[in-house]
């Protein structure tokens, strides 16, 4: 599981239907191996 920055995804993004593509991409990137770090926000 990747290290996500931030974790969890802020509610302001998660609950915004206009940003659902970003939310789904975040969830998909979370499945990367442990060595990966993912920055968002």
């Amino acid at each position, binding site marked *: 599981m990747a290290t996500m920055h931030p974790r969890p995804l802020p509610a302001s993004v998660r609950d915004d239907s206009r*940003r659902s*593509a*970003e939310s789904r*991409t975040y969830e998909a990137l979370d499945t990367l191996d442990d060595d*990966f*770090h993912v*920055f*968002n926000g």
Partner: protein
Amino acid sequence: MTWQSRSGGRARDGEADFLVAHPDLGLLVLEVKGGRIARGPEGWTSTDRTGNVHGIRDPGQQARENHYLLLDKIREFPGWRHRPIRAGHGVVFPDCAVDGALALDLPRKILMGHVDLVRMRKRIPEMHRHYNAMPGAQEGLGSDGLDLLIDTLGRTFTRRCPLVAALVEEERRILPLTEQQVNVLDMLSRLACVMVQGAASTGKTILAAEKARRLAGLLPP
């Protein structure tokens, strides 16, 4: 994530939906575009679930520009060893099927569509390898480079409020003196010694503080 960097001698704003970092593979800047994506004579568009069509920036150009702006920013990090690093960019269309290149600057290898979301563990390393196989590919971040990136981009903080700011705010919140209190204070200016009595929360301390403030104003600088 957003940042401001100096590029070509001037400040420029950069923005990326995601930055993916790996100590050996390097960096990837990802641009995400939702909706049904199209490119027509008027440029790129995204159509949302309700059928509304929105004009969008060229996602390949956007990702590429932000990739280089981010590298400019990273070079400004205090403690960054001035070294070239492996970096690339990609575009994600979570609502679209992607089965080939979409433009000359958007080959399949740097594109992800709907089905790629469930193959992220395979697709992201492939994207890294695409860039790392290019002539002149640079070094990975290394663990020290990754730590610096985490310290700079991933840190959270709470800033302390200086005491003076707290005092200013407290003073602003103190209720303004009533007309009666002002009259009492004016009267006090002619008396050397007075005793003020009153129940709790009737303003004795406010009167004393205001009197002290006025007396302080009489002192020479």
